[in-house]
């Protein structure tokens, strides 16, 4: 009889990763179903590129699984996954310039009545115009809903610095999208 993994906490599932092959597979599947979406969203919006996001996300999940053999207990699985993904994104950032300039921002034609997908692409494009720090702060706060304390812990910054970064990122994105937001509000 299979274990009720859906009722397990993240920490309990993490311990199951050390178990038998079958237990590890089931536990990993459960953890994946809980956190993959958020981690992938982080990778995608921070890198701004689907292919890069795919690579980083896969690598992050594999590193996470490997970590189970080395780490005794893990209380905050989501935080750990985000940290792994962030480190990979930082490595990626070192190797490749990933932010565009505002001048390069060429969204869809300036028509009224944007489709949902267009709106989402607009914000994705606007995010690409931000530096990594601003982009990350905005994604972690607005997308993931992390508290300022959690973001500060993750990024090793002060809460005040994180708050300021989120505010500035929001202003930048708002300015980039301003013409479109104006249309939307009309």
């Amino acid at each position: 009889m299979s274990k009720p993994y859906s009722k397990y906490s993240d920490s309990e599932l993490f311990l199951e990763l050390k178990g038998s092959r079958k237990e590890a597979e089931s536990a990993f599947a459960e953890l994946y179903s809980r956190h993959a979406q958020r981690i992938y969203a982080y990778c995608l919006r921070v890198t701004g590129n689907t292919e890069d996001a795919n690579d980083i996300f896969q690598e992050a999940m594999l590193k996470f699984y490997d970590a189970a053999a080395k780490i005794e207990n893990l209380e905050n699985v989501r935080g750990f996954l985000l940290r792994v993904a962030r480190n990979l994104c930082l490595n990626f950032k070192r190797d490749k310039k990933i932010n565009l300039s505002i001048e390069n921002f060429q969204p869809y034609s300036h028509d009224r009545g944007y489709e949902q997908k267009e709106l989402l692409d607009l914000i994705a494009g606007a995010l690409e115009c931000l530096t990594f720090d601003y982009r990350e702060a905005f994604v972690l706060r607005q997308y993931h809903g992390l508290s300022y304390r959690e973001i500060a812990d993750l990024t090793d910054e002060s809460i005040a610095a994180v708050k300021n970064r989120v505010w500035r990122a929001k202003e930048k994105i708002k300015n980039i999208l301003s013409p479109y937001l104006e249309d939307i509000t009309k």
Partner: protein
Amino acid sequence: MSYSKIIHEYLDTGVDGSTEEMLFAELASDEALRSEFNRQVQLHLIAQSDMNSISPPMDVTSGVFKSLGFEIPTNEFNSNIATKAAVAGSAGSANGPMMTFWKKHFSTIMVAVIASLITAAIFYTSQEFGSGFGDNQSLAGQADNNTSSKNSFPVISSFEDSDSQQANEFAAVSGSGNKSGIDGNSAFNNRVNNIINNRSASNNRGAGGRISGQSSRNGRSFAGNRQAASGSGDNDPDKHLSGNLSLASNSRQVIADISSLNSANSYANGQSPAQALGIKDPTRLAQNSFNPYGTNVISIPASGRRSSLFDDLVDNIDNTKWGVTVRGISVSDASLNNRLANSNNWLDNANVEVLYKFDQYWGMSVDFGRENIAQAFTGTIAGKAYDFAQNPALYWYGISGLLRLPDIAILSGIVPFAKLTIGGTAIGPIGRFQTGLRVRFYENIRLVAALESTGLFYNVDGINYSTGKLLGFTYGISYGF
């Protein structure tokens, strides 16, 4: 600080009351600021929509599992990832649709089951016992047939406060030396003649002999045994064929062991029931156990409710007229948990009730509370609908009806209850339903634990909404005085 930043902080973490008032005053007069406010709200909504629209592609998921040497998950698994993250937060399930169904609806089902059980218990305990035997008429008819099979019927002692008049009349009848016997049908039609109410009879000792009733539970009387009287004058307990079975009417089922009828016959023949039964000191007998043959005794309280195994334990009875309860509420909508930051602060989800108790069953209370109540509604941007969720702390007030069921106490001092509240908030009406247990902890102090369901009705932009599945637990402490 610019108003733009104040708006950001207002939407992001909230601002203090004075700043909020200042902001709203400025918003009321400044159209440009209202546009800025709208832009920031839209930005937030778009970010949320973008987040919800993203999920790892199937080939990426397959790549991860393949790299680890695991079985490649199905498309369904992958498509469920976003749904699980969105719907259940960290409670997603990969164990199939049945498990998903149970996880999603378990709370609802449990509330429904418990509410059904309590409702059934209320109905059951308020019904006339023995309805399964058919109505009294049929029993009387059987009595007329005078069948010997009646000797398997149990004796039922019931608690009845209101039969004193009948008993008095009975006492008068028996005291006058009515030895002629009572026909079953006539007894059925004239309960004056067929009820032996021991307690009431004891009030008329000279006339009817006495088997006094045991008084217990807040002065609530264990009233007399109702026994059928037969009219044959047959004193032989082995001959059960001769007595007509007489039954009390009053729609309370009195089923007589024919053996006891014989004692009643003796009673009718001038002996007190105690004498007829050879009981030396019948006053010492609790009437619940008044069964000279020691079998088939079933007790029914005066209210018609069946007494519990612990009926005599006063722990189940709340003598106080007033009560104050303070409780914490942990009610949430599982489908919104991942989108909302629920407050864990006890004071943010608490309720105070002042209760007046009409009796040991019914009460009415005035309630006041503060609670984070999850709401989900649709906002429209450029003609497109966006899902929006919020979890504001709302003050609420209400009037409640409380039903306690001491008669079906599970254990001593643990009394089931149900409570229905109707009230209001600043944004719309609210209804709440609790069902659970009140546990006597110390003297007049009781612990309260219950399942709770809440429904809030509100309006956003002219559209009416109601909260979805706000289910959870409540726990607190109650003091009676």
